[in-house]
């Protein structure tokens, strides 16, 4: 086939593919049934693979962090060596079980009102790309989980349910730039405002409805739990890290360092209320 004709055909194919992509994007944007249905089936089929991948990758990821992300590497290496000498394989496994149990027991003592029902869930996989910061848990609609339910650990607020399948759900964390704003309160100043992801360094910022000069470093921040809120009051969110100007220097925002370790979650609790949890 002549090169010019082949070039014309390939351009035609590309245009068709672009149009097909845009059609799928439009259908997805409009939340149509077939697209979501196909997505649910695919997600269910691949869910076990995601769990396997997470289990395999965790030791490698820990090793990477140990080598490149720790300032006191030599000290930690010595500590690790002592631990390795002291523990045998069986003891390590038993300790891991005990830690899981302790974490689950801690989750039974959540800092929320006793009448709010909650469900414990295991984190089965993390995000699949860097443009998608949700993680998956092993509980779904069959367990009573619905979209927008609040997720937390004993340390504090983690995020909320983004999507639900039969036996799994995906959680969006509070540091995700696409996470919707939520009401918070400065404990000492008694001032309330709206918090959003800060978009960097895994932080959250209060950028609406607050007097920034009432905040000072180290102040505790909790959910405000105003009427009809999906967030119960007084869930620990984090502590004030700094008060800094916005990019255009016209306003100030209060930057919060979340209490919950959002990168190293093993178990979480899902609060089983959606509309009025306050």
């Amino acid at each position: 086939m002549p090169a010019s004709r082949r070039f014309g055909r390939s351009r035609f194919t590309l245009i068709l593919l672009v149009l097909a992509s845009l059609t799928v994007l439009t259908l997805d944007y409009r939340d149509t049934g077939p697209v979501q249905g196909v997505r649910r089936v695919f997600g269910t089929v691949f869910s076990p693979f995601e769990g396997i991948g997470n289990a395999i990758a965790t030791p490698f990821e820990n090793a990477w962090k140990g080598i490149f992300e720790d300032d006191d590497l030599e000290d930690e290496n010595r500590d690790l060596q002592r631990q390795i000498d002291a523990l045998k394989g069986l003891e390590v496994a038993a300790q891991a079980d005990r830690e899981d149990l302790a974490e689950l027991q801690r989750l039974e003592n959540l800092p929320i009102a006793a009448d709010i029902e909650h469900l414990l869930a295991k984190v089965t996989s993390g995000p699949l790309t860097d443009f998608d910061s949700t993680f998956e848990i092993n509980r779904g609609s069959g367990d009573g989980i619905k979209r927008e339910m609040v997720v937390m650990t004993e340390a504090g607020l983690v995020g909320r349910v983004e999507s639900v399948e039969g036996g799994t759900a995906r959680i969006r964390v509070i540091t995700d730039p696409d996470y919707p704003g939520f009401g918070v309160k400065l404990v000492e100043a008694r001032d309330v405002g709206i918090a959003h992801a800060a978009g960097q360094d895994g932080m959250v910022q209060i950028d609406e409805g607050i007097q920034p000069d009432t905040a000072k470093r180290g102040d505790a921040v909790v959910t405000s739990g105003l009427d009809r809120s999906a967030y119960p009051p007084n869930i620990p969110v984090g502590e004030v890290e700094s008060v800094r100007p916005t990019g255009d220097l016209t306003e100030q925002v209060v930057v919060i360092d979340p209490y919950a370790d959002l990168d190293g979650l093993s178990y979480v609790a899902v609060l089983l209320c959606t509309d009025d949890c306050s």
Partner: protein
Amino acid sequence: MVTARLAAVILVTLVVQVVAVSPLSIAGARGNVILLVAIAAALETDAERGAIAGFAAGLAFDMLLDTPMGLSALTGALTGYVVGTAKDSVLRDAGIIQLGLVAVASAFGTLLYAGLAVVFGVTVDPGRLPAIVAVIAVVNVVFSKPMRWALRWAYGPESRARDRGPSVFRS
């Protein structure tokens, strides 16, 4: 037959992505071997087949993501087409150049995805992009050989880079 073999390659790549590549965060970034399907298919065949393979692999990956569905498919199709066109126009078969093209194409595809993501309402932190681009480029260079073998098997010997036309670097 080619379609079935290509589907098998995409399925295996999807499993590799989910089991081995996505869970492993290096310097806060993850690889994306799905994009490599488009790049390697374009290098093994031509722009048209690269675009089709990229579209199919991207669409399959989109079904597992929470980002808008069709975004990876669009990125894959455009990346495959651009790589196929660039290869046909200017490049030799030298191994090092091919690896360089994989790295550059991976960077291009990732930035394209980020740009399209912003257009379709996904918030992207530009500060993290350099690390993401670097990790995806390195991971794809590492996986490029096995991916090209797999796609060579999928397409069969007859479709390997036929008439490439004139080239500014070719004598």
